């Protein structure tokens, strides 16, 4: 089976929509078991391990993160946050057999109570074709202002 450019682009749109609609079980199912979600702290950071990042999470941490959102005693989500992605048509940078890389510019808005903030970012997805389905091997989110001071960012760009 081969994957078209359009299928890759649709995948990125679908992922953003899952996050906006809070369909986290479906979202977790997109990931490969050894996937990592990385949000660097430093502009053009190359190392996720020996300097701090905003996020560098494996599947255990991502599962914890989304399960916590619905916890009975998750006070920072009482009331809940909402988020909204506006994405530009993804670039497909690599199509190499069953491995694909896309690059997507987004505006991400998150809100809770009377507060709302906007982040501009670029997401780099590494996707794999496994048993006929596209899966996320890694997702890197570079915030345009990654070195700025932020208040809580509670949901996922």
């Amino acid at each position, binding site marked *: 089976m081969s994957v078209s450019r359009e299928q890759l682009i649709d995948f990125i749109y679908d992922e953003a929509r899952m996050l906006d609609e809070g369909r986290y079980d479906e979202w977790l199912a997109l990931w490969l078991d050894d996937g990592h979600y990385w949000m660097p*702290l*430093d502009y053009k950071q190359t190392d996720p*391990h020996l300097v*701090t990042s905003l996020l560098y999470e494996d599947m255990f941490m991502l599962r914890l993160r989304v399960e916590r959102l619905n*916890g009975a005693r998750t*006070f920072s989500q009482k009331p809940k946050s909402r988020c909204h992605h506006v994405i530009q048509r993804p670039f497909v940078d690599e199509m190499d057999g069953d491995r694909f890389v896309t690059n997507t510019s987004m505006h991400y808005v998150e809100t809770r109570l009377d507060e709302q903030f906007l982040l501009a970012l670029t997401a780099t997805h590494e996707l794999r074709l496994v048993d006929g389905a596209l899966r996320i091997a890694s997702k890197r989110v570079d915030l345009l202002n990654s070195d700025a001071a932020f*208040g809580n960012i509670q949901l996922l760009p």
Partner: protein
Amino acid sequence: MTNAADIRALFNGPQVHRDVYTSAELYRLEMRHLFTDAWIFVGHDSQTPKKGDYFTTQIGDQPVIQVRHSDGEIHVLHNRCPHKGTKIAIDRDGNTGKFFRCPYHAWSFKTDGCLLAIPLKKGYDGTGLGESENGKGMKAVGAVHVHRGFVFARLAEEGIGFEEYFGDSLSSLDNMVDRSPAGRLEVAGPPLRYMHQCNWKMLVENQTDTCHPMVAHESSAGTAVKIWEEMGNPEPRPVAMQIIAPFMSPYEFFEDMGIRTWPNGHGHTGVNHSIHSDYEAIPGYFEAMVEAYGEERAKAILDENRHNTVYFPNVMVKGPIQQLRNFIPLGPSRTLVESYIYRLVDAPDELLARTAMYNRMINAPTSIVGHDDLEMYERAQEGLLSDGMEWVDVRRLRTGPEDFSEQDVENGTTERQMRNQFDAWVKFMTASMEDA
């Protein structure tokens, strides 16, 4: 409210008045008195390793530059041109070469602040500029002391000495540095920067608040433990679980860990053990420590598992994981938290990887544990606007008048360290204040 008696009335032992968290006037007095007369953390010398390297930060609300002068010494200068006030450096760090040059009219200054040159200088002949304060150059802070790489400064020209101010509390910083086989730390990357809409003191108090983790962090640490159980408690536990699970330790764990207080508002949790005690050994590290220190001394260094050490007024250090958090006050209800990590020179990289993981899991604006805490601070900041009650209670395990001038060790759930901070707060707020 500007006299010492009014300040003293805000802390009566078991309680502290809510104005200390909400009043703009008290915030202004904190900046002019407490943050001027006390010793305040600036940075680490590895942030400015080479001559001409500088780093910009704040001491209280005062913009300053930490810079490595041509003689190799660290200087801390007010970040303000003596001509018309322009900030000399606005990037977070850089190298200025042999001198600073103001971008407005090109007055230049040596890296110890001394005036170097003014263009068209004859325009100042006979004007008296040379005799004025402004004609000397960029102003240095009152005093600077570098303790094992950590740079502290006192804005005031006169005041308490560094050793007297910190005393035995320096043992926590020393233990953090001793954990390097080379006895040296190096900053590892930029700090996390997390904005809090609350008073800076709430953050400092929370560092020794041992009755909140199992409650406020049930959502994050409790969920982690629950998921791990559902998975059948597989061993070995990954580093992430080693880091987060101890937050759910029961009350007895925190009672038994103990709290030590030192004079001048310093203190730490984890006298006997801490949430950092049960991390897995990292291959090669103990061997490197024994090589450097001998077995007995290496064991003594590593057996010390202090949890959070508060350096009054506004930093916290975690020795076992080489981390420093700087609570920078930006207003009565606004605090910037900068969380730094350090590399233990000559230790295996796995230690730094664990430290970096701790930092992003616990101290980032994206951290679920951070979300738990910030929610409580911001609710408190808003709740304190209520006129229903004026006083905040800090009397846990206080049974009578307390003397904070001697070191003391108590049950780990005491709020004594918070009271110790307010005792020091009154002391340094009023040190240079009129007595009504």
